[in-house]
């Protein structure tokens, strides 16, 4: 009797994976190009920016909080690194930008971790505050790098190592590193504990404030890395380049099955969520759909994924009680 299983039907448990495979089969039947190596590589490459950001947000969410500020933080970081590139050179621009972005993360971390303010409100506020900061910094001008061919900065967005695009390598490496941290290191365990039950964590001697603070620093670090890829790929930046990214990132995290209540989630599954979103968008475009259909389809996919996830936990599709 005590052996109540946590899950229901196996198919619902693997909802995301099943849906992913169904989509892949459907799209490959409808478009010859869909499963070509070229197309797959280009989807991987395009998903890297969302993916890198989603890694950080997954960790924040496992820790029991949200981060909606990553979109405008990306605008900030990209504008900064591109603008500084020509002013002080890439070897200084990158560390300065990373530090500045970490400061923004530290503000989130301080307000949410130390002062214990609600993360939704804080990061939603930061979303618009940082956008304002970007506009003040740039004076409303878009920025770009003049000598686009002669800079080694191009390696991050446009380069390749052993034939694999650098963004994919960065995304893959980060996913692996943070997956290992979250699953095998004490810090990962603590993030899970703090997200799962903050009170019990404090009663276990875990420095809850510090752990939450760290999750926001990691999130900011991921944004900074995403900004390097983005800036390097575009070699310029609009003031609002990251607008809307926060929702796509959150969508990928949710699609990957990370619980918004905190305490459980997985980086590797987030990667799956990221890829799934990217392939859906790519498939729709290959089928000749206008790009905005992807917003509707993405929404539907997320609803179904969340539903299957909840159903798996309940053991049935509908339930009058939670």
């Amino acid at each position: 009797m005590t052996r109540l299983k946590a899950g229901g039907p196996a198919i619902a448990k693997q909802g995301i994976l099943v849906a992913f495979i169904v989509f892949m089969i459907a799209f490959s039947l409808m478009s010859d190009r869909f499963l070509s190596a070229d197309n797959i590589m280009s989807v991987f490459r395009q998903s890297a920016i969302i993916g890198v950001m989603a890694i950080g947000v997954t960790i924040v969410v496992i820790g029991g909080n949200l981060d909606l500020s990553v979109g405008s933080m990306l605008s900030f970081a990209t504008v900064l690194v591109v603008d500084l590139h020509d002013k002080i050179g890439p070897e200084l621009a990158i560390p300065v930008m990373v530090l500045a972005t970490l400061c923004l993360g530290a503000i989130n971390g301080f307000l949410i971790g130390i002062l214990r303010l609600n993360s939704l409100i804080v990061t939603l506020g930061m979303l618009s505050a940082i956008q304002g900061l970007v506009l003040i910094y740039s004076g409303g001008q878009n920025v770009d790098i003049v000598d686009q061919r002669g800079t080694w900065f191009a390696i991050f967005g446009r380069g390749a190592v052993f034939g694999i695009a650098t963004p994919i390598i960065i995304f893959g490496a980060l996913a692996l590193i943070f997956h290992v941290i979250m699953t095998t290191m004490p810090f990962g365990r603590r993030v899970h504990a703090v997200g799962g039950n903050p009170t019990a964590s404090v009663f276990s001697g875990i420095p809850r404030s510090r752990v939450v603070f760290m999750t926001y620093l990691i999130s900011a670090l991921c944004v900074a890395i995403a900004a390097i890829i983005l800036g390097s790929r575009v070699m310029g930046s609009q003031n609002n380049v990251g607008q809307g990214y926060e929702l796509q990132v959150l969508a990928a995290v949710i699609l990957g099955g990370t619980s918004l209540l905190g305490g459980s989630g997985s980086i590797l599954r987030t990667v799956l969520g990221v890829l799934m979103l990217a392939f859906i968008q790519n498939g729709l475009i290959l089928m000749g759909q206008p790009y905005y259909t992807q917003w509707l389809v993405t929404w539907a996919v997320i609803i179904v994924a969340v539903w299957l996830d909840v159903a798996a936990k309940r053991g049935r599709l509908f339930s009058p009680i939670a």
Partner: protein
Amino acid sequence: MSDAQQPALRLQGIVKTFPGVRALDGVDFEVMPGEVHALLGENGAGKSTLMKVLAGMYQPDDGKIIIAGRPVRMTTPIEAKAEGVVLIHQELSLVPEMSAAENIYLGELPRRSFGRVDWKTLEERSNTILKRLKCSFRSEVTVANLSIANQQMVEIARALTVDARVVVFDEPTASLTDAEKVVLFDIINDLKAQGVGIVYISHRMDEIFTLSDRITVLRDGAYRGTLTTAHTNEDEVTRLMIGRSLDLSRDEAAPTFGKTMLEVRNMGCPGLYKDISFSVREGEVVGFYGLVGAGRTEIAETLFGLRKPASGEIRVDGEPVEIASPRDAIALGISLVPENRKEQGLVLQMNCRDNMTLPQVQDLTAGPFVSQGAELAIFDQYRDRLAIKTPSWKQPVGVLSGGNQQKIVIGKWLSMQPRVLIVDEPTRGIDVGSKSEIHQLLRELAGQGYAVIVISSEMPEVLRVSDRIVAMYHGRIMREFGIHEVTEDSLVQAISGIRVDEPA
């Protein structure tokens, strides 16, 4: 057929399975009108599942529910209520921001035209019910402002909006004081006199023997028998419930105490406690006894670095110390098994092993990684030592029974090898079998030289485990008793604030 001869409610051969588990295996149960029928079983025996079937929250896979002679099928709690079956939950399920009246009629507010709420009727009816329950507050009051006991009254009032045939009380006294219990028992007896069938679920034997007419026992999801309360005794019930007799004896070998491990002098914290002085020696169990709110938990939290004392001194092993955080406390070798295991003790969705090693996970490393081997070694050791029943360490703690959850928390803190172990309400809400195991364990720990502080609101518990008892009232220590000089009367006097100069 008259109602008097046929059961108000009858369950026949109820079977309910969850994936991989047969939670209920052909359970029979009946309640006559005007009868209090106690339902007993260890945590995880299937009581809650049975009651959820009864309340329409679960559908049985097999078996019949017969109400007043008529087989029924209920798919929601509302339908069950319409049949006259009401469940009063163990955990309060009120909306704190709403008034008592709104809560009482939640989901079935009386309406006027255009769906507007008929406030006048609502309050009139609610006040009538509250009066019937002899409540001193009116229905307009916001629930959040009521005491826990009064909130429970609202919960009970909810049951009486219909002509209830059967009212199920699930552990109703878990958070009540003794005085409040008396009121509750009066209400139960009133309902009984009105011909309502009562199902009473509790772990407290004394209550069951005071209140019930018959006792039905479940074990491992199966029906074990029904006893007439007047013709049975605690021992028989316990044997039916856990399959063996309980060893209630106290180890009378004279304990040997070592040096003073923890000493508190004149510690005070405004509004919580003042002038607290006591000490605990190695090998000694000091029981803190008092009413809820007497300041015992707050003292424990202070010793564990969760609160800051305004004055006074704490010495650990003779050294004056400052404890500013749980980390400090842990470093000093103080462990706290907190009062509320679900909120403070465990991360419910985390597995058993990870919960147990949580306070020391940063030390159990091989290089930068958590050492799985070291973790498993600790888990296995304490699983065996505390006889924790779980199929595997991978099991999320939330699915274990209350007793096993509590053992995980105890294991978690024992594995820290503490010099001072504080346990706050160690057996709250767990079944008699696990309870007695935990009592024995506390005695054993003392025997191995641990300095132990046990905070409890249950007199038999403090009497059974303690070497000394500190009686508290309103944030003050009233008296300290050696276990051989204490009597129940003097203890009750002390925690009620009555000072006696001569030991009774």
